[in-house]
């Protein structure tokens, strides 16, 4: 076991310099909001640890989580972390099929009992075992077996964390997330449909580095990435505060990039890193590209529609609690407060911004 090369040795063997390696550690550290001492810990951990075996199960899903994972932006993440975790079982990428694939699964479960990480993409149908079978076994059976010897479980995306689209009404297959069917194991819910690639990589690096699960919110999501509302980190927030809203996708306000709240934006009740890390190496995120947030990192967001109707009654809950925990009545009361805030907001600021726009328009004309 000790003969296995460490992650650092393998990175060097792959032709990357120590400087590349330190840069990678620094980037990951910055993403996780760590101080310099935390980055030093990452460096030390990755230099001295060998690859942790990973079983990645695909249940009721669409593979968007796997696809997002391989989009990890820094080359060193796609190149190294993808390999470095020793991805022993994943239906999407593994060479083997059929009984040979199943052998990989069982070999890992046996050889690394209690040591491997279990990553789950997809939900579990509970209405009928036949709704999802692999190698003749039901999703529930497979998950139960694999969870038994797992060190920890990462539930990727909305499917494994909250059931996602298949759990939307009327949930014909009785789809349930991992935490509803598995008990007694640490479960990290990495939310989103899919989660942001760098968030997925960040969670893996956290586990590798500190050998413990990151701090989670009340819904089991890592605080490092899910403690802020998209609304609070949105660069269009000043427009909301000034009462400047897009009223139609083809109006002048859409062209100016005003707030999408009235178009149904779920930013005010969605906890995710879209406004901070953004997507695909920071290129953009839904609101920046003109579409309201649909709230894909929240449970039951599919039934919280229609998407294009703005939520007057969204609950203005705090960071530590969730819509499920706050009573509906309270949600409506605070919602009305926020809606009022959105409408009769700082008029002076609004006038100032409009004045500024007129000025710049007259300058360009």
């Amino acid at each position, binding site marked *: 076991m000790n003969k296995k090369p460490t992650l650092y040795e393998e990175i060097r063997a792959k032709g990357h310099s120590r400087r590349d390696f330190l840069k990678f550690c620094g980037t990951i550290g910055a993403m996780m909001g760590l101080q310099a001492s935390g980055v030093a810990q990452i460096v030390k951990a990755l230099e001295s640890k060998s690859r942790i075996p990973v079983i990645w199960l695909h249940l*009721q899903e669409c593979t968007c*989580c796997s696809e997002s994972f391989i989009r990890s932006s820094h080359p060193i993440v*796609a190149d190294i972390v993808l390999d470095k975790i020793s991805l022993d079982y994943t239906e999407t990428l593994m060479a083997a099929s059929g009984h040979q694939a199943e052998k990989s699964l069982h070999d890992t479960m046996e050889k690394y009992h209690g040591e491997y990480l279990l990553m789950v993409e997809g939900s579990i*149908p509970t209405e009928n075992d036949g709704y999802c079978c692999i190698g003749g076994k039901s999703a529930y059976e497979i998950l139960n077996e694999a969870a038994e010897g797992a060190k920890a479980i990462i539930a990727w995306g909305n499917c494994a964390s909250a059931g996602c*689209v298949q759990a939307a009404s009327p949930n014909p297959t009785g789809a349930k997330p991992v935490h509803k069917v598995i008990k007694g194991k640490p479960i990290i819910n990495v939310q989103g449909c899919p989660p942001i690639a760098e968030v997925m990589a960040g969670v893996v690096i956290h586990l590798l580095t500190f050998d413990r699960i990151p701090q989670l919110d009340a819904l089991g999501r890592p605080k490092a990435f899910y403690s802020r509302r998209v609304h609070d980190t949105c660069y269009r927030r000043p427009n909301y505060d000034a009462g400047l809203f897009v009223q139609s*996708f083809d109006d002048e306000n859409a062209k100016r990039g005003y707030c999408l709240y009235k178009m149904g934006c779920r930013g005010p009740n969605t906890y995710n890193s879209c406004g901070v890390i953004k997507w695909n190496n920071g290129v*953009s995120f839904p609101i920046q590209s003109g579409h309201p947030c649909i709230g894909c990192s929240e449970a039951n967001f599919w039934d919280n*529609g229609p998407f294009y109707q703005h939520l007057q009654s969204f609950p203005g809950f705090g960071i530590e609690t969730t819509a499920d925990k706050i009573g509906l009545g309270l949600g409506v009361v605070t919602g009305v407060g926020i809606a009022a805030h959105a409408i009769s907001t700082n008029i002076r600021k609004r006038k100032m911004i409009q004045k500024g726009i007129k000025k710049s328009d007259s300058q360009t004309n």
Partner: protein
Amino acid sequence: MSQRIVVDPITRIEGHLRVEAEIKDGKIVDAFSSGTMVRGIEIILKGRDPRDAWAFTERVCGVCTTVHALASVRTVENALGITVPPNADLIRNLMFCAQYMQDHVVHFYHLHALDWVDVVSSLKADPKATSVLAQSISKWPKSSPGYFSDVQYRIQKFVESGQLGIFANGYWGHNAYKLPPEVNLLAVAHYLEALEWQKEIVKVHTIFGGKNPHPNYLVGGVPCAINLDENNALNAERLAFVGELFDKAQDFINQVYIPDLLAIASFYKDWGAIGGGLSNYMTYGDLPTNGYADVGSRSNSGADITFLVHLF
């Protein structure tokens, strides 16, 4: 005497697939395939707001993300008699093209190649010979002997670690793998390169649709506004970004993917005679320039490409 072979799961696809084959005297006489997972998205869609339908439909597949959403918005627009603005047609076409390019490359290298490429055999290759071969079929700049020897060293180290990860339990060394070691090394090197490459072209989706996988669509047009004098909308910088992404993607496809495809296929010509070929395919054409309903304004998707895609 007949025998039954079951392959379950079929890997390197999206979804869950089981194939059973009946074999008599060494030949397959009958075969059955079944998708072994259901979510009931059709049932869930009933009674929903048609403007929301694209998001549900898009989640049918996260590998070929975007195409199901596009089909959904077109369907709703057709039903409601909505004509989208010409710029929306063009933006949707660009997103579709980005997907078409990314999906072909990922399908070839990461999903299908391991059925034709023997990863372990690449360790026996002479990197210099691979370099000569690579330079004879393409002008791709990363084809030096040193480059291939670095890749080979990486694979060597990986195999020696004893943790084979996604390459564990393959049929390595089986005589159905027909590529010489040098071609295997070429393909393995480009498998790794393509893994880096694929995350770039999808940025076209991020620019127009905010994210990838699963970018945003909109019934009636596209959500991203064009305003050349605004930094909150599509302006010259965003358009130049899109242009650059397509240029680079095209270079990779023309100089790596297509030469590799032809080189590898030349060792498996006999496989071209197996299966249904073109007898049962329909192509409708795509990339409309005057609304999807106007069949005449769609370009033909090309039967020759379809043939290669289904061969590999």
